[in-house]
């Protein structure tokens, strides 16, 4: 189980790094193309779609790194048992949203089968797919966060960035 989690997180981390690097490269090549006269009209579209996928993959990583802000006014005043209960409630609401967005994302992805991207002309379902994938990854991270922080639900982040 631990190994599966480690592999899952390594894959999401690697994809996030690759997508971010791709975004930078696509925009820089777009600028270079404008001044060096090699036309790369699709760089804007590629970079924007990379941003969508980067957010999709990275949102779970952001949650793990504590890069998603939340108020701790209530939790600070509670004992451990009440904190655990509150963390379950928060995770429950968060999972509810992920479920709703996953469902909406699947419908959106199906509708994307009939739409083409403006420049590159590939099916928009490849881009809309980012929504259900994102909510799936976030769902997994929400559950893992709940388990990993059971003894200190509102303490330090599960994984600090060096």
């Amino acid at each position: 189980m631990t190994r599966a989690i480690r592999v899952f997180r390594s894959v999401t981390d690697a994809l996030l790094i690759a997508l971010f690097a791709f975004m930078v490269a696509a925009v820089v090549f777009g600028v270079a193309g404008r001044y060096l006269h090699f036309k790369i009209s699709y760089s804007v579209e590629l970079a924007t779609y990379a941003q969508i996928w980067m957010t999709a993959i990275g949102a779970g990583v952001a949650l793990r790194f504590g890069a998603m802000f939340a108020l701790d006014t209530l939790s600070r005043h509670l004992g451990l048992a009440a904190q655990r209960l509150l963390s379950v409630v928060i995770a429950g609401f968060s999972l509810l949203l992920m479920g709703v967005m996953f469902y909406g994302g699947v419908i959106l992805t199906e509708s994307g089968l009939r739409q083409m991207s403006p420049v590159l002309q590939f099916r928009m379902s490849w881009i809309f797919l980012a929504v259900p994938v994102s909510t799936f990854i976030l769902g997994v991270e929400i559950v893992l966060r709940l388990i990993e922080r059971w003894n200190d639900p509102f303490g330090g982040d599960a994984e600090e960035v060096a």
Partner: protein
Amino acid sequence: MISLGIGFFFFILIGVPVAFVFGLAAFVVVVMTDVPLVIIAHQFFTGLNNFTLMAISFFLLTGMLMEKGGLARRITDFAMDLVGWITGSLLQVAIVAATILAAMSGSGSADTAAISSALLPEMKRRRYNVDFSAALIATAGTLAQIIPPSTMLVLIAVTNNLSISALYLGGIIPGLLVVPGLMYLAWRHAKKGGPAYAPIERFSLGRLGVSFLRAIPALGLGVVILGGIFSGLATATESAALAVVYAIIVGRWVYGDLKLAELPRIFLKAGAFSAGIMFLVGGAIVFNWLMATEGVPDAVSAWLAATVSSPWSFLLLMNVFLMVFGMPMESFAMILLLSPIFLDAAVDYGLNPVHVAVVFVFNCVIAMISPPFGGTLFISALVAQRPISAVTRHIYPLWALMTLVLLLITYIPDLVLYLPRIAGFVQ
């Protein structure tokens, strides 16, 4: 409208991440009305499908590369030779370094981290008051969000369809107005502080020249970003992407401080924080769409028109509201949630949206040092290894200074509009 508001505050107060709160509050409304569920996913996607927003991610990455690549250190060294001869020299160095870094980085958090890491250990060694020093660095670090390139100015421009260049020019004078005030407060503190605050070194033109030459490659980052944007050669997003490449080249091959093996970790960290912000943007777009559908902006405008008679009273009301709301609320969320409402209403009062947008962002900047949740306050306290409450005790004079500048830029609009006007961005 009521269910949207109740849902929003309920989820915020129990501690659901703000990025999820927008979506959950929207879900409550969707369940109570006939709006199809797919609209949440669709509006979320629409929010992220934006090329300009990418500038935020690139500026965050550039800030981290400046720290790891030694660019921030060269600028701090230059600031040391420039003002190291003044009483309370390290405090003055922090202010000057933060101002120069602000012109290259769009992230207050990254600048605060860089300056805190570089100066706080030495401040501790010299027996400076570390709590005051941390509070001062936290305040100086916020300049990155008002002096261009600022990620908050990008976000408010995207959210309200304003010109990024106009806002960047509008942020320069307000940012620079803060600097002399900070230097005075630092000097006054140092004068009372005794021998610990004696100048580090005598002024030397030769040494200043050498450190300036060493800092030139780092300072070139400002030319890449601001030169690109204001010359029209590149958009804000493109300039930000070029800045990433430039920072890597200078950090690795000019200064030699950046190891290529560190790049994946830096990209991962910046990517995670960017994704957190982008998810917030996506959720806010859903929420704002529902607010517009429910007629919230129109209702607020109508209420304001009936209650607040003059533009100046409106601005006062906005400032008070944002200062109070800014204490518990994250700044990016505040821009996404409230700026469309306030900027729409401001136009009805005949106010210039560029002016109001810069004033709005200045409020967000103050929120970054406002207890109990000020973002840069947390970072400097963390680096100083001091309790946040101890650092917060010293924030009030600095907070008062920022509020004074806020009042100045609110009621003397030319302080914001002069530069955009001479550049032809506003009438």
